[in-house]
């Protein structure tokens, strides 16, 4: 065993190989140097009563930098991520300018080098996310970009999406789709149904999502390219993905905490805090998302952390931008609301998303000697009340304010550095 500079003591290690009572020793290089009983080191971090797990990985984070620094920065967003137990996040490319070429990829990677978690940019599929011509995907892939998406919008043109998929197969990258057919969704601001009709708010039908899920499954079948479905929200989408997986197609999917906890009925007070895209759906859809998470149809929980400055959310419902923050509440919402064993929750939050993001070498792997110490220490029984005012995010658009949750991140280790200790960010 190498020399331990730090030992996480008294916890129960939980990773995809199982659970065992063990201390975890971390060496000067930030690697795990020992896992076992009664380990010693210069510095001891208490994990009594806690789970020591691989750090969480978010496939879907909007860090807003460059361009919208008043809402979030790589630094503030990564701090929120670390507090939420994340050691890696995928930064969505709908920045200003968009992450659609090597220079912006480099900028985000540089900003991420000083962050409190690993920040890996997703690249846009099309230039400027305009859906017209392919972005230089190979150039971005050479810098380590693994996931490509025009998130915020879906690639509308089927021929262009087909070309993107064909091209992607030569690069070994994955295309992520924000599934929304604009011809059906345009002008809508919430889920189309009972509540939109009653409230007089134009709706976005479930079919707008499902139509594109169907199309991209068919394109994946045609091209062989892997496709990852972002933030699935409807029962129909989940059924399509279930069938595609049964067929053996290379499809993966994620769902957000708000889509397994909130419904369109929340919009009754017209508070834009509850405006999000895809919109909050029906009770039946929430049930289907939970079932999809339980049976593995949905591979990962992703936050779609979407910070917005306060004043933009204090606007009429149909003028306010869609989106909610989520990095600091995802784990606790999953442990509180899903009714799944904690192993299953961490599968959805850590090792599966790490693989989809192409980050499995560094994140989400077993807690074992020689692996980088990207770890999260969770107190599974701690209860706490969500208070947006104490968030590390620059934004406060949190729809869960006042909710009592069970399960809390106590410490987060980034390559052996305790970036969060006892729920406090260390820098």
């Amino acid at each position, binding site marked *: 065993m190498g020399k331990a500079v730090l030992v996480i003591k008294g916890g129960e290690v939980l990773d995809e190989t199982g659970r065992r009572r063990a201390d975890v020793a971390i060496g000067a290089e930030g690697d795990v140097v020992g896992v076992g009983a009664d380990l010693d080191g210069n510095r001891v971090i208490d994990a009594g009563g806690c789970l020591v797990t691989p750090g969480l990985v978010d496939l879907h984070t909007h860090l807003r930098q460059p361009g919208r620094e008043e809402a979030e920065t790589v630094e503030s967003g990564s701090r929120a991520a670390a507090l939420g137990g994340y050691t890696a996040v995928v930064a969505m490319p709908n920045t200003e300018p968009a992450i659609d070429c090597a220079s912006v990829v480099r900028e985000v990677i540089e900003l991420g080098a000083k962050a409190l978690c690993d920040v890996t940019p997703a690249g846009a599929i099309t230039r400027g996310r305009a859906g017209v011509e392919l972005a230089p995907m190979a150039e971005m892939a050479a810098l380590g970009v693994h996931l490509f998406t025009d998130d915020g919008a879906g690639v509308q043109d089927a021929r262009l999406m087909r070309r993107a998929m064909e091209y992607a197969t030569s690069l070994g990258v994955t295309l992520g789709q924000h599934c929304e057919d604009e011809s059906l969704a345009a002008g809508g601001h919430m889920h189309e149904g009972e509540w939109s009709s009653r409230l007089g708010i134009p709706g976005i039908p479930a079919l707008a999502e499902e139509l594109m899920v169907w199309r991209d499954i068919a394109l994946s079948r045609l091209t062989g390219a892997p496709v990852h479905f972002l933030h699935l929200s409807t029962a129909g989408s989940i059924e399509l993905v279930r069938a595609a997986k049964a067929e053996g197609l290379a499809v993966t999917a994620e769902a957000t905490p708000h889509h397994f906890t909130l419904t369109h009925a929340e919009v009754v007070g017209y508070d834009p805090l509850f405006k999000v895209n895809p919109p909050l759906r029906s009770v039946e859809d929430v049930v289907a998302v939970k079932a999809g998470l339980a049976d593995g149809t949905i591979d990962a929980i992703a936050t779609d952390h979407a910070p917005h400055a306060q004043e933009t959310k*204090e606007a009429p*419902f*149909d003028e306010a931008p869609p989106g909610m923050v989520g990095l600091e509440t995802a784990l606790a919402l999953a442990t509180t609301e899903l009714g799944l064993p904690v192993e299953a929750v961490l599968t959805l939050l850590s090792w599966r998303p790490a693989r989809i993001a192409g980050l499995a070498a560094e994140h989400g792997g077993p807690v074992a000697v020689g692996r980088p110490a990207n770890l999260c220490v969770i107190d599974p029984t701690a209860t706490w009340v969500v208070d947006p005012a104490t968030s590390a995010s620059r934004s406060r658009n949190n729809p869960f304010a006042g909710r009592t949750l069970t399960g809390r991140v106590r410490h987060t280790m980034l390559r052996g550095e305790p970036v969060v200790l006892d729920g406090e960010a260390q820098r």
Partner: protein
Amino acid sequence: MRHLLSIADLDVDVIEQVMTLTDSFVEVGERRIPKVPTLRGRTVVSLFYEESTRTRLSFETAAKRLSADVMTFSVGSSSVKKGESLRDTVQTIEAMGVDAIVVRHGSAGVPRQVANWVEAGGVRVINAGDGAHEHPTQALLDCYTLRERLGSLRGMRIAIVGDVKHSRVARSNIAAFTVLGAHVTLVAPPTLLPESLVGWPVEVSHDLDAELPKVDAVYLLRMQQERQTEALVPSLREYTACYGLTARRAELMADGAVILHPGPMNRGVEIAAEVAECPSSVITRQVANGVAVRMAVLFLLLAAEGGDVADE
């Protein structure tokens, strides 16, 4: 009642109270000097983010007949053009010490948001129409007008014809008519109906000719030109052919049945010019009653308990 945001918030007793008060204010309106000092010293602001002639004038006339001071916040010539947010505008108006804000906005829910923002102060908020959500004072004046002609709404059959999907008037009227005991049938092509009618206490028909002989009142909604470009109807001509109240169709109505329209009318589209002027039409009564109903609403929200309605 703290604010008037939605008919759905009101129970039968409050609507009856508004009707009774309206009787008094109709009487005030018939006086040589149609003005009472009830709201002297109170300030009412009309905050209209959407063009409106009749509703704004009706509210301002109502407030003035109650001796309130009236301020008009006209969006076109204001700080809104300089980029001021809705919330900042509302805070500015609230800071001036006003008593009531009458708000009209193109987005559903804005009056509710404004009411939440002024919750700490004593300001009352009245919804003068919000997007496709509600237009509660229109529904109240429609109920009053129908009672003038039909006596009571209990058991009456009312057809609401046209663009229900985009209509705040329809949403408020469905709630008001049904809570007062009327049966409502929506008559429109499927493209102009809300996508979901779950929980709506209505029947639906696509055959106006079949409905007209059965109804005590027909309520025509304004048909907007842009519905044609949105491909919700193939043409206004076809809409009129299927759903317009033409002179021929008006003859299908029973004796004593009445015709309503919230205005402004598209003569020759949803209603034929001669039908608008016929004895069954109560369209001008609606406008006249609008002032008295809005006086009743302002009185309910702003006058002290036990204040005298018609104190001269």
